[in-house]
């Protein structure tokens, strides 16, 4: 190991430095470089993917000129760098310039704690495939992602534009509301794993089964909340173009606008990775314990990395799929969904899961496949019940619903009342 030139530098700085610490430092720097570059290139390609998928869903071609469409992200980037930047006269310039960076950086930092493959054996010892395996892993994700809202809020405020300000206000209210539901839904995950470190959560899922089966409703709440947290349709009210021009980034141009765009995709990637790690077993290959047990080999690392990327890409596709399928919520609907449905649901679910965990532990059921199977069975029942409640007898689509008499009466009442109001005014 001493033949590494960088390591010699560390030795000069401190002769007492043991070899492993040097390897840790070098390994971390290398991992940072790799994760950062893959992440940035991936985000650029996602903008292309979004346009291609939207085109596919709407039966169009999508970008197909620059290098048959593949070089479109590069062309977009070049264009955004070359374009003139405009600054509004009455903007608060320091915050106006800072805002795009603040919205982008937290999404990227969160990736530091997400494990993306099984440990890699090298001649210099085993290297964990995570940039920083923090003991507070998951809480770190929540803490850092809660800072992302500042970018949007400050962009809205510093632009000194009423549409931008409204976008910023909406975004802060929306993100606080859904952060609570999101945090509550993850409490169930922590109840099962008994730890907040992401590697422990993944290990727990490898032994008991994926959390999406064991904690289906928590997954549902987390998924909906992450759409709200990333400001994606159906919850993209901060930029709702039909009401607010372009929302918080109305006044931004060129690369600064592009940064908000990149930040949105970076947030999506992070949200997908979190969903994967918390509910879909992270880098765990399903139906086998082969990948979780030592000896770790390079093949295992490559395969688990592939599995992890597949899961993340699926959720990225899911984000885009939803965007081009579901229309935007109204603002009051968004708020009442967050506070009156998601939060009580999450609280009730925590109580149920805590009771079940307590009963199973008291009954002496070992944490393993049986434990998972019992939880899964209970979740199927709960999910069916939840579906019936949320569906309100409509069987998914409101277009084919039978209207109950009460609702018909209510609608009639409204239509009768409205003319009366207009008469009064007249």
């Amino acid at each position, binding site marked *: 190991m001493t033949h590494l030139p960088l390591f010699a530098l*560390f030795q000069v*700085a*401190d002769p*007492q*430095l*043991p070899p492993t*610490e040097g390897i840790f430092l070098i390994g971390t720097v290398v991992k940072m470089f790799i994760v950062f570059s893959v992440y940035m290139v991936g985000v650029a390609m996602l903008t292309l993917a979004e346009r291609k998928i939207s085109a596919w869903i709407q039966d169009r071609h999508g970008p197909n000129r620059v290098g048959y469409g593949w070089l479109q992200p590069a062309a977009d980037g070049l264009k955004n760098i070359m374009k003139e930047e405009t600054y509004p006269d009455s903007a*608060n310039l320091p*915050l106006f310039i800072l805002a795009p960076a603040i919205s982008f950086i937290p999404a990227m930092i969160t990736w530091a704690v997400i494990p993306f493959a099984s440990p890699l054996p090298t001649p210099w010892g085993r290297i964990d495939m995570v940039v920083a395996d*923090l*003991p*507070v892993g998951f*809480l*770190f994700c*929540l*803490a*850092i992602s*809660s*800072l992302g*809202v*500042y970018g949007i*809020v*400050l962009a*809205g*405020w510093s632009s000194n534009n009423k549409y931008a*300000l409204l976008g*910023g*206000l909406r975004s*802060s*209210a929306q*993100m*606080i509301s859904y*952060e609570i539901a999101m945090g509550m839904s993850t409490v169930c995950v922590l109840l099962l794993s*008994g*730890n*907040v*470190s992401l590697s*422990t959560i993944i290990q727990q899922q490898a032994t008991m089964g994926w959390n999406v089966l064991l904690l289906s409703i928590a997954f549902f709440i987390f998924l909906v909340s992450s759409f709200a947290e990333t400001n994606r349709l159906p919850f993209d009210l901060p930029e709702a173009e039909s009401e607010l021009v372009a929302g918080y980034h109305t006044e931004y141009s060129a690369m600064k606008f592009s940064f908000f765009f990149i930040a949105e995709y970076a947030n999506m990637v992070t949200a997908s990775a979190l969903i994967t790690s918390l509910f879909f077993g992270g880098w765990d290959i399903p139906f086998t314990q082969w990948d979780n047990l030592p000896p770790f080999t390079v093949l295992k690392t490559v395969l688990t990395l592939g599995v992890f990327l597949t899961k993340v890409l699926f959720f990225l596709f899911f984000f885009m799929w939803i965007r081009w399928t579901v229309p935007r919520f109204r603002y009051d609907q968004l708020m009442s969904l967050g506070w009156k449905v998601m939060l009580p649901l999450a609280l009730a679910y925590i109580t149920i899961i805590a009771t079940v965990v307590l009963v199973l532990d008291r009954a002496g059921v070992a944490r393993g496949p049986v434990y998972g199977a019992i939880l899964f069975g209970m979740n199927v029942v709960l999910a069916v019940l939840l579906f019936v409640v949320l569906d309100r007898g409509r069987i998914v689509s409101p277009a084919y619903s039978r209207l109950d008499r009460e609702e018909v009466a209510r609608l009639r009442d409204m239509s009768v009342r409205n003319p009366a109001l207009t008469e009064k005014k007249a």
Partner: protein
Amino acid sequence: MGNEFFSLLYSFHFYLFGLIAVAAAIAFVTRKSPVAAAMWLVVTMFCLAALYVMMDAQFIGVMQVLVYAGAIMVVFVFVVMLLNLGHPSELSDISGKWGRLFAGFLGLALVAEILTLTRSPMDLRLVVPTIPVTVTSTGGIIGGVSGPLFREYLLAFELTSVLLLIAIVGAVVLGRKRSAS
């Protein structure tokens, strides 16, 4: 263990974050724009969190960011933006010559008090709890906090949450318009 290297790294970062925290705190009190002041306060909170993490209190550090920077300050900024507090130059808590003199006197007194405290031979460590605390090794870094909190101090913890609930209800009652009743 390469202690010298790491202690150098440690003290460098301690002073770095400490200086940023102090500078941001000074900027926080002197800025006249409420949003700018709030942002400086966020920077201070963040540096404090970094200092906590360096003291191996990662949980408290993360909570500092999550609760103060991520939740309370966002609500604060939200309210400031919503109220849109007129011209910043007109906003001042301290007005008049006598007000300024009094404020300056209070500030000096505080500095003097802190200096006396740092020089006093008094034992400033926190009092060790008398109830034997079980620190569990399970549950990772949270175990050390959650174990005592939910076993030895459960009653105090629950009473605190009831107190917070009372405060919320009280705020709602006070904030409600009189005409509604």
